[in-house]
């Protein structure tokens, strides 16, 4: 038999964050803690199916009028409209002026990918793969792959995290925007920046928007944590809505994985804001073609759950409560961790733990310290020093704080 056509296929490195969880699962140490992958956990360290989700799932299961027919290519209409409304606000001028579009997508990733594929085909000319795409340093590691696989050839980083002061490098960011070629695409985290947890303040967003407007830079928002970050949908959408009010055309990739806990149903939405209806319609028609060759039409279960919830005032209130429950627990863990580190007298400053927002915290631990945490203390976190606050519980706070203290004092 001839040699295999796949003999030359190299073994790809595992996706780091999932490998971390796999290693965690295999660890037999009873003290082990998983501060890796970005999913919410209860104080018992368990996944949490939101009560409103459970209720709506049961409603769907009991509704014999429902079937499993194909959704339209762009998705469930009630989902699309409600999802975009959540991002842009009930009184959004763009919605009133009928110049928004929505594409139901497979999670936030799918929304990013459809947006990226569209931009590569239709933005800044036709099939202009040379348009620079700017991604924050650091960022979610999959951003890079999404735009590379969509065909962009010039992916760059923009200054974001200032390791020395453990905060936003605003000046570096603005400089990069001033230097960027006109029409460059900038991936902006709408809130709860992943992995640093550090967001621009409203004033800083205003400065960013001003530069982007002047230099004709395209804003592509990634909004994966709306509601989950502060507990307030409006607060977490402030930046996106500000840009809309400033007249930008933009994309916003939304994920309902975290704020609905629907991780594995793949519920996302790409919101498109354009100058007018006609432009948006043409954009959607082209996005339909992209969707058709990628997944044809999106999965219905998750979209139904979200649409049903958002469309009912009662269920919406329940959902809002559930989201606040998650956000509040994260905030509690932040303040508890910080106060323990400060009581222990752990070298360094720890206010960033409570000043950062969302699921993640960039602790500032260096790779050697991280290795110590993983190998010696069986506490799993990313090599970047990123921890998922959701992995903390009232039971493991002490152990984690003590371990961080050890790592920082023993390892330099």
């Amino acid at each position, binding site marked *: 038999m001839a040699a295999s056509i796949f003999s030359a*296929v190299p073994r790809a490195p595992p996706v780091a964050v999932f490998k971390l969880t796999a290693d965690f699962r295999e660890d037999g140490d009873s003290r082990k803690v998983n501060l890796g992958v970005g999913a919410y956990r209860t104080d018992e360290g368990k996944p949490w199916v939101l009560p409103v989700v459970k209720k709506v799932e049961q409603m769907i299961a009991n509704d014999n009028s429902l079937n499993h027919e194909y959704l339209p290519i762009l998705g469930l209409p009630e989902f699309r409209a409600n999802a975009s409304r959540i991002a842009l606000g009930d009184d959004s001028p763009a919605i009133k002026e009928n110049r928004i579009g929505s594409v139901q997508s497979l999670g936030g990733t799918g929304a990013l990918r459809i947006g990226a594929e569209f931009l590569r085909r239709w933005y800044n000319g036709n099939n202009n793969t040379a348009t620079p795409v700017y991604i924050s340093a650091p960022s979610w590691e999959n951003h890079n792959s999404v735009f590379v*696989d969509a065909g962009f050839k010039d992916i760059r980083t923009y200054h974001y995290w200032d390791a020395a002061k453990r905060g936003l490098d605003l000046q570096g960011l603005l400089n990069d925007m001033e230097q960027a070629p006109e029409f460059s695409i900038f991936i902006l985290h709408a809130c709860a920046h992943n992995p640093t947890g550090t967001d621009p303040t409203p004033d800083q967003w205003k400065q960013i928007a001003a530069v982007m407007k002047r230099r004709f830079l395209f804003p592509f928002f990634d909004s994966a944590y709306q509601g989950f970050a502060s507990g307030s949908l409006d607060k977490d959408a402030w930046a996106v809505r500000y840009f809309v009010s400033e007249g930008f055309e933009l994309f916003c990739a939304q994920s309902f994985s975290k704020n609905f806990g629907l991780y594995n149903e*793949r519920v996302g939405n790409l919101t498109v804001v354009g100058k007018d209806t006609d432009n948006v319609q*043409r954009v959607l028609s082209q996005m339909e073609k992209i969707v058709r060759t990628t997944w044809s039409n999106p999965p219905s279960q998750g979209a139904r759950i979200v649409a049903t919830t958002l469309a009912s005032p009662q269920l919406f209130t329940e959902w809002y409560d559930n989201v606040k429950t998650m956000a509040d627990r994260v905030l509690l863990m932040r303040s508890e961790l910080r106060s323990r580190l400060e009581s222990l007298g752990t070298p360094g400053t720890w206010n960033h733990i409570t000043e950062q927002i969302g699921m993640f915290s960039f602790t500032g631990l260096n790779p050697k310290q991280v290795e110590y945490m993983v190998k010696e203390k069986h506490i799993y976190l990313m090599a970047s020093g990123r921890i998922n606050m959701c992995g903390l519980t009232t039971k493991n706070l002490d152990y984690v704080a003590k371990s961080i203290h050890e790592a920082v004092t023993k390892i330099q």
Partner: protein
Amino acid sequence: SSWWSHVEMGPPDPILGVTEAYKRDTNSKKMNLGVGAYRDDNGKPYVLGCVRKVRPGPAARRRQGAGGGLRRLAPTQGSRAYVTVQGISGTGSLRIGANFLQRFFKAGRDVYLPKPSWGNHTPIFRDAGLQLQSYRYYDPNTCSLDFSGAMDDIARIPEKSIILLHACAHNPTGVDPRQEQWKEMAATVKKRNLLVYFDMAYQGFASGDIDRDAWAVRYFIEQGINVLLSQSYAKNMGLYGERAGAFTVICSDAEEAKRVESQLKILIRPMYSNPPLNGARIASTILNTPELRKEWLVEVKGMADRIISMRTQLVSNLKKEGSSHNWQHIIDQIGMFCFTGLKPEQVDRLIKEFSIYMTKDGRISVAGVTSSNVGYLAHAIHQVTK
């Protein structure tokens, strides 16, 4: 001004257009024969009993799959192994395979499709960066397989090209090779050293027997051909909108399968990270629960039997109408679709005079035919063809 002023309006989907026109029609006798989804004898969508029995998942199972979704890895014959990854129904599975080939199959860029093939095959492979070619398949004179034409063309396909085969219930023609013909095809593709990519969207749905419908795929594998396979559970489990599908690569051995699997994950992650659970969970529960699996086999046979019965009734009604044409192909073809052989002008008349909607190529979805409208359909076809 807008960034998008130069963006052209995308062309309307031809099949969607058929449904839109059907919806607008006020004729009470109207029929939608464009629909690519199964309908029961009342013309309604059908949720399988076994699917209904699968309740919402246990609360705990909310974890993200690690890129691969529900998959298994097990040895087949000899040292060979395969890797299966969950895909977004048939389209998503085809696309993953197409992207994988573009990235790792450096020897060939050309994908050979049967003429005709499912309309979405071409843009899927093209968007993945591959080139499209074709081999003869359908003979419009006989409304059946142009076997000698196909074999001639396949024998001339350059080595190391990719050839796509419909495993059963060819879409759009309903024309499948007989087993003897499949055997000849297998010998030829082996000789030509072609990479075989099977698209199986109708297993069980075609003949009513899942083993019979998978015969070609299994035969090729038995002959030592390491195929690629895309599967859809949209039709055979009625899970259309849940997007349940799978993509499989047969590899030389387990080690190679692991390497291939790792690269598939790298492809999937920037596309949608991980697949949706609901459809796969339903399909998996059905396949792995003996009573449900039994029930499924009965129900999928029920769907196939109804389709086959509609074909038979259509032909007998045409005879009753007094048609002198040979309509045997309607019975010989298999699966959801039937290439009637009707010409565009005849299709136009069916739409305009009888409110019977189908695509211009004369393709009808037999799923749209019921015992109450088959007589009307036969009458109309006779009127435009006599």
